[in-house]
């Protein structure tokens, strides 16, 4: 674009820039306001939550947190959720990344069909799988165990990881592995020594998304766990759906806040990796 071709392109682009920033801010307000309101409400006492009109200024209290955390099952459920999210995230990344690599690189008759079939399995409504899974788990005697939930989550996480990572691997130049294989690596060696280190940003972002999916999953957790391995979303659903006492909004916002914090902290910790350039410098710049 030349300066002469358009009337005052600089002013035009500056205006466009401002419009975009305004639109971005508006979107942030729309998406973040409920979160803000949830966090705010979690520090109110029961009366302040329902004042009309809603108040922004109140005496903050940790009462809801303290009273709710004292019930042992919240902290145990938090730990359960961490175990299950980490376990299913790690397992699905390990299996999904290798499967995605195979789909991206290995010439195999019917590879495309296999990939699509695995993806199609995600099209099955989870509710249709929940009951059979429960029956299987019960007959194996593994209901209410972490590993059961981890494996159940892998059924939808692995296809997800596989397809994301397949796209990622396809974007890497094939010559990287070929060079490694000439330099003395097997296919596995080239994958672990060259491809995995280069793909760290992609692997980590996929891992985070997988863990978030596992973190907030409700249906399988509700069906497959009972007391011992139950997760936080089950608690939230329990509070919200308490038909005897009515929803405890204070508790709901407090548990909601507790649920969000680890995800945010985790995302902040790995953001260095997330924004890092991918395979720059591997080949011609």
């Amino acid at each position, binding site marked *: 674009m030349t300066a002469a071709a358009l009337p005052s392109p600089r002013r035009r682009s500056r205006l466009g820039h401002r419009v975009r920033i305004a639109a971005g801010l508006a979107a942030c307000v729309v998406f973040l306001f409920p979160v803000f309101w949830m966090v705010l409400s979690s520090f109110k006492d029961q009366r302040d939550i329902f004042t009309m009109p809603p108040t922004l200024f109140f005496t903050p209290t940790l009462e809801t947190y303290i009273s709710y955390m004292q019930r042992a099952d919240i902290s145990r459920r938090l730990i359960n959720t961490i175990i299950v999210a980490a376990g299913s995230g790690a397992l699905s990344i390990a299996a999904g990344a290798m499967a995605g690599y195979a789909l991206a690189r290995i010439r195999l008759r019917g590879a495309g069909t296999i990939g699509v079939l695995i993806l199609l399995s995600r099209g099955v409504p989870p509710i249709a799988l929940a009951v059979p899974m429960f029956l299987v788990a019960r007959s194996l005697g593994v209901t209410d165990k972490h590993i059961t939930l981890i494996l159940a989550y892998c059924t939808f996480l692995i296809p997800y990881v596989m397809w994301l990572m397949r796209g990622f691997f396809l974007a890497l130049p094939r010559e990287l592995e*070929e*060079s490694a294989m*000439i330099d*003395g*690596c097997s296919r596995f060696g080239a994958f672990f020594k*060259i491809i995995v280190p*280069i793909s760290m940003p992609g692997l980590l972002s996929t891992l985070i998304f997988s863990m978030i999916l596992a973190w907030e999953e409700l249906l399988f957790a509700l069906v497959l766990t009972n007391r011992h391995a139950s997760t936080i979303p089950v608690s939230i659903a329990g509070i919200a759906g308490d038909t005897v006492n009515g929803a405890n909004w204070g508790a709901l916002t407090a548990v909601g806040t507790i649920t969000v914090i680890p995800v945010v902290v985790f995302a902040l910790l790995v953001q260095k990796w997330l924004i890092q350039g991918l395979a720059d*410098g591997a*080949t011609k710049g």
Partner: protein
Amino acid sequence: MSTVEIRDVRKSYGQLEVIHGVSVGIADGEFVALVGPSGCGKSTLLRMIAGLEDISGGEIAIGERVVNHVAPKDRDIAMVFQNYALYPHMNVRENMGFALRQRRLPRAEINARVTDAARILGLEQLLDRKPRQLSGGQRQRVAMGRAIVRNPNVFLFDEPLSNLDAKLRVQMRSELKELHQRLGVTTVYVTHDQIEAMTLADRVVVMNGGVVEQMGPPLDLYDRPQSLFVAAFIGSPPMNFFQGDVEGDATLVLDDGHALALPVPVPGEKGRVTLGVRPEHIHLANEGWPAVVSVIEPTGSETQITARIGEHVVRVLVRGRTEARPGETIHLAARPGDLHVFDGGTGRRREMAP
């Protein structure tokens, strides 16, 4: 170091055969260039030598050993790719030492060999940089360094200079030649650039459509191209061609009716032929083929004249300068030995009488 024997090698993708039985013997220490237009199968052939592509038929031997089913890592070859394929997460030192670490060589020896290669290539100052911090030419050198630390039996190059700008390409080309003269390692070099092939190689293999059109020393290809394809492919600016029918002993009647008198009789049967003359082999004379000058392009050391014989465009390259001006009629002549005649049907060369 080692020989490479390619015996009747074929490559098919399903029903489609793309390499139709290629045989090339490469001597120990020889530099062979595979050259041809894109899609001619030269890269596929190189990748089969490397073990990156399966061999559908025939066999490839490195040294005494047939390597058809040997993994790339066990062939003791080193390869430089067009896009260099440097490992982005490793610095130059680690990139160059990677193959040696794979072979679990002692750390001291790896260091010594990397330092040595870095010195040869002038990379000493860059050893701690990551590939993304290097210029194109430096990356190219690192890719070469990664190959030479291996001290392999065979070097394979897949269009290694194509991503460089013109000036750097010429510089790297002579560095590459010097490197080969110094190390003397058997080398197979793929390029689509005939000048690279001609300047670098001991022997050039011209490929077209999955077959070898001709192989031989560069100047043989230039002097006596065996087919129209090779004649057109080798040489820059390209050879002039005149299609026509032979009449009498030594007259070529072009399609637009113009007759060219040839200094010697056309060998073989009469009938349809293609006459070829290189621009640098045509000179201006007092008598000869009359042509009308259309463009004069001086470059100082030489001048390119574009002229027309009837409707035929002829390019002439003369040393120094010329008095000719656009619109003038000039007379063109060539020595008998510089004329190439190709059969009108097969496109194969007909040997002229000396």
